[in-house]
């Protein structure tokens, strides 16, 4: 069909989707008012438009194929989640808690009552998960994202304390500065990996510990307001102009704490997706990740791409720090256990390393965390159960081989029978 149509529909879809997700993510139930469902319906509408366009362009069969394909792609995760929730329920039941009530609280808390917390939790996870996922594509395991997170947080704080330009200029500068610091933190692992082959799992992990212990030093150096009893265990508050705008600034009743960092996270996810699958750099990184010998034989420098991958991964993890400082806390705490780096690994694994998938798994994890808190608050169920459920989900989803193994075994059984019959006749 003609292009103008399709572009027009595209525009409609993008607009609907954008507005929808802003409403959805910025929504809150605290003040009674809600944009939540509006947001969801708009997004659904956008998706609908997409499907319409897709059908107009490729015809009905293609659409069905697409639906089938995407169904297949979500069936494993969904199955994993459901089964894990069941197991968790059984665990609760046998250990004397009421699973029904607990889960009701979990979902009510995570999806409705404290939805805004789910979103707040998701943003940093999406960044760190993107970091891990990106490294995966180059065949690297950036297990030390936690460390790059701290570096980013420190960098963002430092820049935001002193950079007094108008926000529109200043925030991007801080953003870049934080990213650069995170990237710089991975220079050593990248260098060692290329020069000596030292395994990044160990180097980044060790440097993560280093970064974690550097943060208090940094904080004391920029030690904050003596008026608070926190002094000097938190830095000064960053300059007003460097704070990420919060949804409440353009949506009345939106929770004042929910900031635009989540949108940033989604945009970055899309950018990374583009970088990986639509650009030469991504092509080379994936080639190196899949088969470095062949890549090398075709003139793709392995070392160069390991550097690229680890540095970009470092930058992404650092952005999680930027997100927390400039979006949420507006200062750097001596954070006893941030853990976004570690949890980012699970989120990335769950998404199978797909940058766009990371957005959803990030929201899922954030939802489970927020809901878990609500659950333990209202039903006095230990929130550790949520950790276990997470673990099981992860296991069942990443071990999608379980399902393929089962199906293969099933096929083989069938074939055996048939061939046996055939042989019998022969």
């Amino acid at each position, binding site marked *: 069909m003609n292009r103008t149509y399709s572009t027009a529909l595209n525009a409609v879809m993008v607009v609907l989707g954008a507005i929808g997700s802003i409403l959805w993510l910025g929504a809150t139930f*605290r003040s009674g008012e809600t944009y939540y*469902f509006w947001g*969801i319906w708009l*997004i*659904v509408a956008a*998706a609908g438009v*997409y*499907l319409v366009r*897709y059908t107009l362009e490729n015809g009905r069969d293609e659409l069905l194929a*697409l*639906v089938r*394909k*995407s*169904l297949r*792609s*979500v069936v494993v995760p*969904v199955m994993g989640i459901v089964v894990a929730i069941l197991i968790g329920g059984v665990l609760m039941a046998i250990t004397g808690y009421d699973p029904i009530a607990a889960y*009701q*609280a979990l*979902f*009510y808390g995570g*999806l*409705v*009552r*404290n939805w805004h*917390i789910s979103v*707040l*939790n998701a943003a940093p996870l999406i960044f760190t998960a993107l970091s891990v996922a990106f490294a995966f594509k180059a065949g690297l395991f950036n297990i030390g994202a936690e460390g790059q997170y701290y570096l980013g947080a420190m960098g963002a704080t430092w820049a935001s304390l002193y950079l007094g330009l108008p926000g529109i200029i200043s925030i991007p500068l801080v953003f870049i500065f934080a990213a650069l610091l995170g990237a710089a933190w991975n220079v050593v692992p990248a260098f060692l990996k290329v020069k000596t082959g030292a395994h990044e799992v160990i180097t980044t992990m060790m440097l993560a510990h280093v970064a974690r212990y550097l943060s*208090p030093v940094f904080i004391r150096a920029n030690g904050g307001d003596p008026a*608070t*009893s*926190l*002094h000097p*265990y938190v830095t000064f508050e960053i300059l007003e102009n460097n704070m990420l705008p919060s949804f409440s600034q353009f949506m009345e009743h939106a929770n004042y*704490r929910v900031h635009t960092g989540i949108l940033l996270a989604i945009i970055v996810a899309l950018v990374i*997706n583009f970088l990986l*699958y639509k650009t030469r750099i991504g092509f080379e990184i994936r080639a190196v990740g899949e088969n470095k010998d062949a890549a090398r034989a075709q003139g793709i420098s392995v070392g160069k791409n390991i550097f690229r991958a680890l540095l970009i991964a470092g930058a992404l993890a650092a952005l999680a720090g930027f997100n927390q400082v400039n979006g*949420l*806390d507006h200062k750097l*705490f*001596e*954070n*006893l*256990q*941030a*853990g976004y780096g570690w949890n980012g690994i699970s989120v990335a694994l769950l998404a199978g390393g*797909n940058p*766009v*998938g990371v957005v*959803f798994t990030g929201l899922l994890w954030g939802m489970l*965390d*927020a809901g*878990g*808190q*609500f659950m*333990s*608050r*209202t039903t*006095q169920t230990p*929130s550790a159960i949520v950790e276990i459920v997470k673990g099981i989900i992860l296991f069942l989803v990443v071990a999608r081989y379980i399902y393929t193994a089962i199906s293969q075994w099933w096929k083989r059984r069938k074939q055996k029978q048939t061939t046996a019959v055939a042989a019998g006749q022969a």
Partner: protein
Amino acid sequence: MKKSLSMLVLLLAAFALVLVGCQRAEEEQAAEPAAAEEQAEEAFSGVAAMATDVGGLGDKSFNDGAYEGLLRGEPIGFEARVVESKQQTDYVPNLSGLAEDGADIVFAVGFLMEEAVKEAAQMNPDTYFGGIDIGGDPEIPNFQGILYKEHESGFLAGLVAGHMTAEFSDASDKLNSDPVVGVVLGMFIPPVERYEVGFIQGVKYANPDVRVLSATAGSFTDQAKGKEASVAMIEQGADIIFHAAGLTGLGAIQAAREEGVLAIGVDVDQNAVAPDTVITSAVKKIPESIEVVLQSVVDGTFEGGTHVYGLAEGATGISEFHDFDSVIPQEVKDAVAEATELILSGELEIATTRAEIEDLLD
């Protein structure tokens, strides 16, 4: 891209489904607080709740102490509720959530929650809030900040340690001749600093010649590191080990026990951990102070601002000596009593930060 976009559709569908299920829940939840309010009137019954910081329960320190305090509220009609925060984003929702779920008073435990609790208190003006290790704010009448003079406890502990290691080193065969004591820290945070500083000052007050060794484990949960720090000090002749290191400190006490020297516990009376080793503990009676606050809620005498609990309120100090009561010479006990007087009368100033102590010492 295509794949993921259609994935979005399905995920949303899933979400939407769950939501439908939750709507009903919503009403139920909404009903709850109202009920709680009404009951609050006649023969007192109410809900006392707390949110831990990321340290969580089982820290054998302020989180556990606060919880014990809540439980002490049960006789006077309080139902205790607790939620363990997992990350900083949880603080505000947990605190105000507890309030909305009908708690009469909500305690925020740990200095990290300062901002969160003030926010929550402003958002829920008709619920009382308390903050352990957090300064109050005159602007917020329904919030009471509760601080402790850990440095006082530290000082008295240091006083005992200083005297014992120097003059009375023959009082126990677990003491050696050289005048050295040690202090093991978990991570360097406000209460920990106050304990350390007070301890050092106490030691020097007892005897300026005593050396005080200090080391930080870098964690509140790594017993092995705590043990190693304390062993390293014992090697240097330290014969009394004080710790302000939460669970890491258990390692420090264990080291003292194995190496046959003495230890001083922290926050709560830790004599039970090793009765033959822990001579006393620099305590901070969080439960008692919480009890006081709860009572004030029942009596309707709750007041905002900062309440600093110290020797005067009987909230700080050192615990009894248990089996060591016979070992500790009368002189030391007198010295403690005397110092207590001086502190109460304000004649004896105790440092609260390392900066201050350095000035004080030279």
